């Protein structure tokens, strides 16, 4: 051995840090040293601050707004109301769901915390004082916080602007507080199956209202340069390009004169997909004053007014044979959308992908109907770390399976096993309209059950129940099972768009002469580690080290157009675009290599980081050499340079899946719980960075723990939000967070260029039913069928109390 020994093939693969490598996150050096650059870090000369006067009432008429005292406060420059925005046509704005939403209260307010006036001042403190000094005269109106009561004949009319409109964005409206009805599957056929079934289990499953609550709240800095007519908008946007187009359409400013920048984002989880009144008011204020205007929410603003998640009342019926073979599934959902329908869903899917609610099971006949309803609550309905309503769907089916198991007197693990879609059935056409790309559920399930020692756990549980009945313990043992199937990677432009914007995504690669590169994408990382993982995809595709590839996102002036990051779509869509753009680079590199090696194009083949002459591996050109030649050597018939761009329109969604098992101890006297074990097996297809996957799973499971065990947005009957601070809105700390065991199987997506399916949201989707099922399972022996989340101490205590376990 000497220094001249060439590296082995394995060493060359290793040095690229490509796909499959647990490469450390390149972002972390910055973030862990406080060197991130978030929206609130942006400071511009002469920058002003905006803040909102918000409604203390959930439903009230606004009789007058008096700004005089506010304007007298030193530093307060302007107080904008709906009257000021009306001449610009900006007092209302379109929502992502085809509805419209007040930017500032136009005559009335529909939820507590609604934006009433926008105070613009020279600093934050003056703006806050100004908000305090604005006098608003409200006339209180009757409040509706229950979506079922909202549909009563004599329920108060919430949306007076829609009075008499019997047609909405998604079809007929049958009541003044009704938004839409959305259906999938076969109604009559399903009802026939239910009527003739040997066994039918029926239950109402409520997935309560919660909130994504990212660490960094929403905000923006709008800067209108009146000299060159350019508007720059920095903000916490999960979809910067879509925001640019929407701003252009609303404001009439030509799209080339708008630059939207998403700097570092401190978590999104769906909360930063939508457009908020703060953005519009900041833009208007900047246009009016000619100065940059910053608006940043505080925690209460964020929790009480920006997009919530869930709030689905899912009435289910599941039919089966006595042996447990499922024959049909029926679901009617009442969806509480709040005061405006501001859900973030692909336009043709007003209830998102709720029709994935047949889950991992081969259910031949199914029907789903969703009714959207207005109430006096904050608008939203975003996919909180899930793909459009998938977590609601997964929770529904995983509860219905448990309830059916109770009805049948069967073990819930076995019931799942006999109903799973079989490996050989893929691609599988579901009864509600999806084509599942690939899966191997039985293998994953058996691996999971074996890993936790399922049979022994059941024995221990039975012994525990006996000991409890003998008065020897006050703790019960719950085993929470879940096998979830997600639908992510929205999506094919043929059926997925948001406000008409097709949901493709993009990647543009420029190789530098010395063999390093920059890649720009239409997505935007909010903590997912795109700068790390997308470089890994490219490293494997183009044979340059990941460490030599910069990944840039979020600036619409430089990045190619794309629909952003949410719904686990970055890897399935932009990741595919990245691989495809890489392959274009490689195709050109192949021609250059062939020229340099003086052989025909077909006589060279790609090998890790080089092209080699077939059959003569000692004759090769490395990608680094090829990059230099691409720019500096005149090659007949080939343009100089080495660049590529790909816009990827996925042919199908991807369908990640997983098997989660939670073992939980429950104290029946205090309602407290302890997670003894949590096993999470994820199959996200090809794995790009196992370390990042593990981190994503840990984070998502912890959010799932929060949602299942305590996190909620709750209102009293007056429509007051009871959970507007982190005292009452549960965010787990390290103390409440259990240990997780992660595991995987790998079933690549057959239609994705690298076989990857996406993973960021799986643990939230699968985690919630796993935790919730564990709680239910602990009480199964005592007769519990269904108890709504969140399972905080008093609600668990209430279960025990209701079952007579307190003597």
């Amino acid at each position: 051995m000497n220094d001249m020994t060439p590296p082995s093939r394995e060493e060359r693969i290793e040095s690229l840090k490509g796909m499959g490598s647990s490469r450390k996150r390149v972002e972390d050096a910055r973030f862990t040293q406080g060197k991130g650059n978030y929206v609130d870090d942006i400071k511009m000369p002469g920058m002003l601050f905006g803040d909102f006067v918000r409604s203390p009432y959930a439903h009230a008429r606004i009789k007058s707004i008096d700004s005089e005292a506010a304007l007298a406060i030193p530093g307060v420059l302007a107080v904008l109301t709906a009257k000021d925005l009306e001449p610009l046509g900006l007092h209302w704005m379109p929502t992502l769901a085809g509805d419209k939403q007040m930017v500032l209260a136009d005559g009335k307010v529909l939820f507590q915390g609604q934006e009433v006036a926008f105070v613009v001042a020279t600093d934050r403190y003056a703006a806050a004082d100004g908000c305090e000094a604005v006098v608003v005269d409200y006339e209180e109106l009757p409040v509706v916080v229950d979506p079922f009561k909202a549909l009563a004949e004599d329920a108060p009319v919430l949306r007076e602007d829609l009075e008499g409109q019997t047609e909405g964005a998604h079809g007929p409206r049958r009541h003044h507080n009704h938004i839409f009805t959305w259906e999938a599957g076969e109604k009559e056929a399903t009802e026939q199956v239910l009527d003739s079934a040997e066994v039918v289990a029926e239950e109402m499953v409520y997935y309560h209202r919660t909130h994504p609550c990212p660490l960094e709240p929403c905000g923006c800095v709008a800067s209108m340069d009146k000299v060159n007519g350019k508007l720059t908008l920095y903000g916490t946007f999960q979809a910067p390009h879509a925001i640019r187009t929407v701003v252009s359409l609303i404001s009439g400013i030509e799209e080339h004169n708008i630059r939207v920048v998403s700097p570092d984002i401190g978590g999104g989880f769906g909360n930063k997909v939508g457009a908020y009144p703060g953005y519009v008011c900041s833009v208007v204020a900047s246009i009016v004053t000619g100065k940059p205007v910053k608006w940043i929410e505080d925690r209460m603003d964020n929790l009480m007014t920006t997009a919530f998640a869930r709030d689905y009342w899912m009435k289910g019926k599941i039919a089966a044979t006595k042996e447990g073979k499922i024959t049909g599934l029926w679901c009617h959902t009442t969806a509480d959308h709040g005061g405006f329908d501001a859900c973030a869903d692909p336009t043709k899917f007003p209830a998102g992908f709720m029709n994935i609610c047949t889950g991992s099971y081969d259910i031949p006949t199914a029907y789903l109907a969703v009714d959207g309803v207005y109430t006096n609550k904050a608008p939203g309905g975003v996919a909180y770390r899930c793909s459009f309503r998938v977590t609601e769907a997964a929770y529904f089916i995983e509860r219905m399976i448990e309830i059916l198991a109770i009805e049948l007197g069967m073990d819930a693990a076995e019931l799942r096993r006999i109903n799973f879609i079989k490996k050989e059935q893929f691609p599988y056409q579901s009864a509600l309209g999806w084509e599942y790309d690939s899966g191997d559920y039985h293998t994953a399930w058996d691996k999971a059950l074996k890993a936790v020692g399922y049979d022994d756990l059941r024995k221990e549980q039975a012994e525990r129940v006996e000991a409890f009945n003998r008065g020897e313990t006050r703790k019960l043992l719950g085993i929470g099972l879940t096998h979830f199937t997600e639908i992510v990677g929205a999506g094919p432009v043929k059926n997925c768009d948001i406000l008409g914007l097709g949901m493709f995504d993009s990647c543009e690669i420029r190789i530098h002469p010395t063999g390093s590169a920059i890649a720009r994408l239409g997505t935007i990382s909010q903590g997912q580690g795109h700068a790390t993982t997308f470089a890994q995809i490219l490293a494997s595709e183009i044979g340059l080290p990941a460490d030599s590839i910069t990944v840039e996102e979020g600036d619409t002036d430089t990045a190619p157009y794309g629909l952003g990051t949410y719904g686990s779509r970055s890897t399935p869509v932009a990741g595919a675009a990245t691989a495809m753009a890489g392959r274009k680079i490689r195709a050109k590199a192949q021609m250059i290599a062939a020229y340099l090696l003086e052989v025909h194009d077909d006589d060279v083949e790609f090998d890790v980081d080089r092209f080699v002459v077939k059959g003569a591996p000692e004759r090769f050109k490395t990608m680094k050499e090829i990059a230099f030649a691409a720019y500096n050597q005149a090659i007949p018939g080939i343009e100089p340079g080495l660049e590529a761009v790909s816009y990827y329109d996925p042919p199908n969604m991807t369908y990640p899946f997983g098997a989660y098992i939670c073992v939980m101890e429950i104290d029946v006297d205090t309602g407290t719980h302890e997670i003894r074990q949590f096993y999470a097996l994820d199959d996200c297809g090809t794995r790009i960075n196992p370390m990042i996957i593990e981190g994503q799973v840990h984070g998502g499971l912890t959010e799932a723990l929060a949602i299942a065990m305590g996190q909620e947005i709750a209102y009293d009957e007056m429509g007051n939000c009871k959970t507007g601070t982190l005292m009452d809105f549960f965010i787990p700390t390290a103390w409440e967070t259990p240990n997780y065991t992660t595991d995987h199987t790998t079933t690549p997506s057959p239609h994705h260029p690298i076989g990857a399916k996406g993973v960021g949201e799986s643990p939230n989707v699968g985690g919630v039913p796993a935790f919730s099922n564990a709680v239910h399972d602990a009480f199964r022996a005592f007769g519990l069928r269904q108890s709504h989340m969140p399972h905080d101490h008093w609600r668990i205590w209430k279960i025990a109390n209701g079952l007579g376990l307190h003597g």
Partner: protein
Amino acid sequence: MIPAAFEYHRPADIPAALAILDEHGDDARVIAGGHSLIPMMKLRMADIEHLIDLQDISELQGITVSGAEVTIGAMTTQHDLINNADVARVAPIMHEAALQIADPQVRYMGTVGGNVANGDPGNDMPGLMQCLGATFHLVGSGGERAVAARDYYEAAYMTDREDDEILTKITFTAPEGGYAYEKQKRKIGDYATAACAAIVQMDGGTCTSASIAMTNLSDTPIFSEEAGEALVGTACDKAAIEAAVAAATGAIDPAEDNRGPVDFKMHVAATIIRRAIERAVSRA
């Protein structure tokens, strides 16, 4: 979450602080760690024109343990309390309770004096001080006086302290016997759903003294003399403990909030009190 404008004062000694209090009367408030007052100001529920920061007043700092006599300066942080080996030795219940307050970040700032002085029913130290039979020392323009912790609390945020008085220190005699501070909370950083401080002294298998106090189960901390009496003279067997639990729960009046309804809180309180007594007895 931005407070209204206020004047900030930082006196170096007690007379200077009292002078500012005298001058501004109702418009002035002293501030220790700020964990109760600052959020109220940020929510604009408290409008304080003059804020008097006590952190430069050295007389309010420090912990002295002399034999069984313990003196804690009002500005002592929970962090300092936890890290004081003498306190941990002579009054381990205080160490145990302080570790259950909020989280380390809060405990770096939060003070013992602030925790007991303003009468927040959610705070842990008031119940603990009642259990210990501690004395609060106040100073005002009228001079110094001492008030028993068991007599100090009148209602939520209403105490025996006059507006022009400052709480300077807390004294108590470290108890003998077994102890426990049992607390149920929803999460780190939350106030108690129910909490109980118990100190039990046993001699030859018979309880010679017992002190039971509770946190966040009424609008003030609750010291239940009857609960202690139910144990004294017994072997602290199941029947005696149940009698003490019944006496203690008879003295509380919890209110419904996001932690749960009243029937739940009563049941949890009984469970927590029982566990506190059982653990104290096991250590006696």
